[in-house]
């Protein structure tokens, strides 16, 4: 139904490629084709990156081996923020232009984003133990990550609490947009609070100069995480599409062979 209404409202041919993203069947095919290969690439990069990071890279002269957690922490922290922005953007597109696939992308991203945020928090506090002597320090970055986790949880809770799926998508899209506008302000306020209460003595995780042998595995892990994210989103999107479009002909054809 969506496909047809989108195609008939298409303005000129140059938008046709774009409208394919509004077609559940096409997106399903795309996700089906690419989720697996991208996942395999991510896995290979994980293996190489972890080997480089945990075995090849030298220990830090100050922190010893404990710094190695940055190979997990930094990509997680990046993806936690990135996924919130992508989620908000696609939820917003779904809200404004009534594109169902876009809503489903947002819905697929949310738990992944929450997972990355959680990962960043756990690895951050694990790193904190040998460095600061305690698992939790009210450091600006960790605090921002914590608030981000709350934002993800609020989004997920809201979209699960509303029964009607379309209403749920639209309402949680508004929340994601409000959150994404607020995120920089929250980040700034936490930084401001932190400098007032702790001074700028806290060592930062990513330091300005970094050894190439440490940088390379970090970059590899970074790419690996991004590929994993992409693959996982496509996978979840596949399931969401099948469930959402279960009444349509193309899903019946897939299910019944």
């Amino acid at each position, binding site marked *: 139904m969506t496909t047809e209404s989108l195609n008939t409202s298409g303005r000129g041919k140059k938008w046709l490629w774009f409208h394919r993203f509004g077609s559940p069947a096409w997106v399903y095919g795309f996700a089906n084709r690419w989720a697996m290969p991208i996942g395999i690439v991510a896995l290979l990069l994980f293996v190489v990156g972890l080997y480089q990071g945990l075995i090849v890279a030298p220990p830090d002269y100050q922190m010893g081996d404990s710094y190695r957690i940055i190979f997990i922490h930094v990509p997680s922290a990046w993806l936690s923020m990135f996924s919130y922005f992508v989620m908000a953007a696609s939820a917003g597109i779904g809200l404004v232009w009534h594109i169902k696939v876009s809503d489903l992308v947002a819905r697929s991203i949310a738990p992944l984003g929450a997972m990355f945020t959680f990962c960043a928090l756990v690895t951050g506090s694990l790193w904190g133990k040998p460095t600061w002597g305690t698992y939790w320090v009210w450091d600006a970055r960790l605090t921002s990550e914590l608030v981000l986790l709350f934002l993800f949880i609020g989004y997920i809770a*809201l979209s699960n609490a509303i029964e009607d799926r379309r209403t749920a998508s639209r309402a949680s899209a508004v929340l994601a947009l409000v959150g994404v506008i607020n995120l920089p302000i*929250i980040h700034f306020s*936490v930084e401001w609070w932190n400098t007032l209460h702790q001074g700028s003595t806290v060592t930062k995780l990513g330091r300005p100069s970094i050894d190439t042998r440490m940088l390379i595995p970090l970059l590899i892990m970074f790419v690996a995480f991004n590929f994993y994210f992409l693959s996982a989103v496509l996978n979840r999107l596949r399931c969401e599409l099948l469930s959402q479009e279960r009444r349509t002909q193309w899903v019946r054809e897939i299910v019944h062979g």
Partner: protein
Amino acid sequence: MNDQTVSTMSAMMALVRRDLIIAMRERGDMLQPVLFFIIVVSLFPLSVTPDKTLLMQAGPGIIWVAALLATLLALDGIFRPDHEDGTLEQLVLSPHPLSLLVLAKTLAHWLVTGLPLIIISPLLGMLMQLSGDAIIVLCGALILGTPALSLIGAVGVGLTVGIRKSGVLLSLVILPLYVPVLIFGAGAVQAAMVSLDPQPHLLLLASFSLFSLAFCPLASATALKISVN
């Protein structure tokens, strides 16, 4: 064009008046957030310490957290009764811009729930051993900050008003967004306590409230249109 503006203004004024009349007829409900505010604050000395210096240090934060929770408690009243008796649908169907009607309702709600908190706050400041200057700054910070609490809260209620039991959900959705208000608001009072200039905090708080004033009514209106679906 001008006529339109005038009639929208009078619609907003009528809405504020309507909500204030209803609030006056249920005065008991109006007192509840204030009582809650007082009780929560007075629990802290009992649970933490009655020690004067420690209370002075923790006081601003405690008062702000309590104000935040009191606001949260009263928040549902902004749209939920209207949703239940059907007047919310009529507002959504009004030819006037819904965001402005929402703004009027938020104003009325703030007058009924936010303002009493500000009026009672000097008393709580005294209980928490704040200095005279700090109490003045506390009032100022509450005046600047509580509108943002109501405005952001209206978005949250707009999103959850269609859900039957939404109390905890509302706090999950709203509290993370309250972080800046809490930081700037409590920061201002703390700065005043140690004889630092609270002005930067107050200015940041004011700009956050203005920012909320610009965006939140639009977001609440969108949320309400979605929720009455």
